[in-house]
């Protein structure tokens, strides 16, 4: 890289930070308060830019300190991600501040693309590693920087191929009535197949719809099962967790169940109250969907 060109990479990142997504660039009306707000945001952007200049992308400029090629790329990439994270923080602040002011378009700040060209010399080349050198003086840089690389880093939405979905551990709270009905049907099928009245009674949430709406159903996709959390509204110590598998045939198992106080600490009550509170919120939500 020519002399202090690598220093300028910080500037490139800074400029990239200035490049707001054109589709979401705000165009606030010239009201003093909004101008002031925008100034604040821009000040924060400058802070991010300055932060980017001093973090990660600071180049090794001495001949005695070669840098590995892949490390160089990595440091540029890390700086970019850091910069975007910081911008996200400021986007959040900005959105928070304009809430309730519909005349200001909501906006987020993004770095859509980073392009750079680096010229460099080589210190040592082995089959596996390439060590780069950046000369600081202009004359030396012109003479020695005979190799070059240009690169583009773009910001894209993450791919969602099936493989990635399968590889990402996910737990999902089931709110869809269709899926919830399937779960309850599975439980009924299982209990019907056992023909055991006592077992039927041991599942407290099957009494009525209100109770069922308070059951938190969490799908643990990688484990191919559902976990059900339920707290009895009338009994402040009755809380339990059940596990349902549907394949090859429905099977419900009790994971843990508290029906009375164990010890003085009352830790099962904490679980009860948390599940009950969340269950009530969910029930209210589900009622609104009907």
């Amino acid at each position: 890289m020519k002399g202090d060109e690598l220093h300028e990479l910080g500037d490139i990142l800074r400029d990239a930070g200035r490049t707001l997504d054109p589709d979401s660039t705000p165009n606030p009306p010239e009201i003093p308060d909004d101008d002031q707000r925008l100034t604040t945001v821009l000040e924060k952007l400058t802070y991010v830019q300055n932060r980017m200049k001093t973090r990660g992308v600071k180049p090794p400029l001495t001949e005695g300190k070669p840098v590995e090629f892949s490390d160089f790329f990595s440091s540029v990439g890390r700086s970019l991600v850091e910069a975007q994270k910081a911008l996200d923080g400021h986007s959040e602040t900005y959105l928070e501040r304009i809430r309730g002011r519909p005349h200001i378009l909501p906006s987020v700040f993004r770095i859509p693309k980073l392009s750079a060209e680096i010229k460099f010399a080589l210190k040592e080349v082995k089959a596996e590693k390439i060590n780069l050198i950046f000369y600081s003086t202009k004359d030396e840089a012109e003479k020695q920087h005979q190799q070059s690389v240009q690169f583009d880093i773009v910001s894209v939405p993450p791919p969602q191929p099936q493989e990635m979905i399968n590889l990402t551990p996910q737990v999902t709270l089931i709110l869809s009535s269709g899926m919830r009905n399937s779960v309850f049907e599975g439980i009924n099928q299982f209990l019907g197949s056992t023909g055991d009245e006592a077992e039927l009674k041991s599942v407290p949430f099957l009494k009525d719809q209100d109770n069922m709406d308070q059951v938190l159903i969490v799908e643990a996709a990688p484990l191919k099962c559902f976990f059900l959390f339920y707290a009895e509204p009338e009994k402040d110590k009755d809380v339990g967790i059940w596990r349902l598998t549907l394949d090859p045939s429905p099977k419900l198992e009790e994971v843990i169940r508290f029906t009375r106080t164990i010890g003085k600490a009352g830790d099962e009550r904490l679980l009860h109250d948390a599940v009950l509170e969340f269950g009530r919120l969910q029930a209210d939500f589900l009622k609104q969907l009907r």
Partner: protein
Amino acid sequence: MTDIPGLDKLPGQISALAGAVPQAGISLARASIDHLLDPVRGFPTLHFMNEARLAWRFYLAQKESEIFFFFMREDSPVNVVLDTNISFRVAAVSRTYQPMPITVESISKRIVLPPFIKTQPSAQELRDFAPQGATRENTLFLTLGPQRQNPLAVMNPKKHNLVGITEPDWWPKLRYSPNGVPGAIEPDNGKYSLKPFLDLTETLRSWVKNGFDVGPDMPFDVDSLGYQSDVKHILKTIIKAYSEALSQVRMGGTNQSKLFLALVGEYEVLDFQARVVLRLRPDGSIASDNKQDPFQLLMLVWMIQEQEKMKTRVAIGPPDFLVSGALYEAFVEALRQKEALTEIATLLNSSSEEVNSLLRAFAKSGVIFRIKREDDGDTDVLVLPGVDSGKNAALMLRGKFVVDAAKDPPRVELKKNTIRNLLFNEPNRESPSVESEAVKYFFRLFDNIKRWIGVLQ
């Protein structure tokens, strides 16, 4: 074969360079992953290495009695015997087939020869269009003109140094046959006519201007170049560099976790090409000093991928040969400076204004070729053909220039008192001829063209 220390490491270096790009993609994905899994803050975004374009340059230079491998520019690059630029892209691709590593042997090799060179003239063609005594070995057989309608046979071009020094019987002989009508054998009374040289100039100019790499290719057996050939060694090294880079980019990431592979995707090496300028001896080995009667060869090497089939395409071109572009314009501009115009006007017994006007008109279809490199500048010959008073005319100048091609725009300066007039034919002469000094340069060019073909056959 010349021992070239460092050249054997080139494939490893190129593949390491290429392999760093998908590695960078993995690093970026690693850095993005937190951001990706935190949808609350901003858009979930993946920072993605879309493409990297790499340019790699190295030299072989003679230092004292040995040849060294350099990545850096030396202060005095006069004795550079090999100057190579390799460029390629590593880009994210969407592939529909299973990528496989490739080997040098699996890549087909093709060559593009200048279309105006007939490498294997028939006995009949030699009888009809070449001087008596011409053979395939001692004769360069060209077909000049836009339709390749003008055969030109040049016998013994390597005797160019004898022109003007010995009796004409010892000079190279040529026979130019416009439109296939057998012409006279030259020199005639110790003179060569101008027409074949102007036709050659125009043919070379069109060839370079239209892209000397354009044209049909034919199979090329690199191994047939012989054990001593450094051209073979260098070509095979470049092909190996490509195959290792491609394999590294394709297969290097396979040890990564499936998650990162899903995020990063696949990369490919694209548009791999090498521009190689060599100073060679007639046997195709690198010329380490000027005593070995060296000549220069320019090769362009491309790697072309058609689905899973790989092809190397080698084209030979004229090194140090300009027909247009910023550097060409800079040469013409150097001649149009006040002092240069005065010098040329004195040589031509003309005025600066007339010379300026002549240069402006003739420069539109000229060629410039370098004939010598020295510490204090290059010696170049400028052939500027044109039409004057309705007849073909040509101006041929030789001068010493200081050239800085790396500047933007390039800078060219004519050294004082170095310009020589080699030829300015009078347009009113019916059969203009070329003086011996100018002829020497054309025959040297013929000799070089013959050698280009020779080292690749």
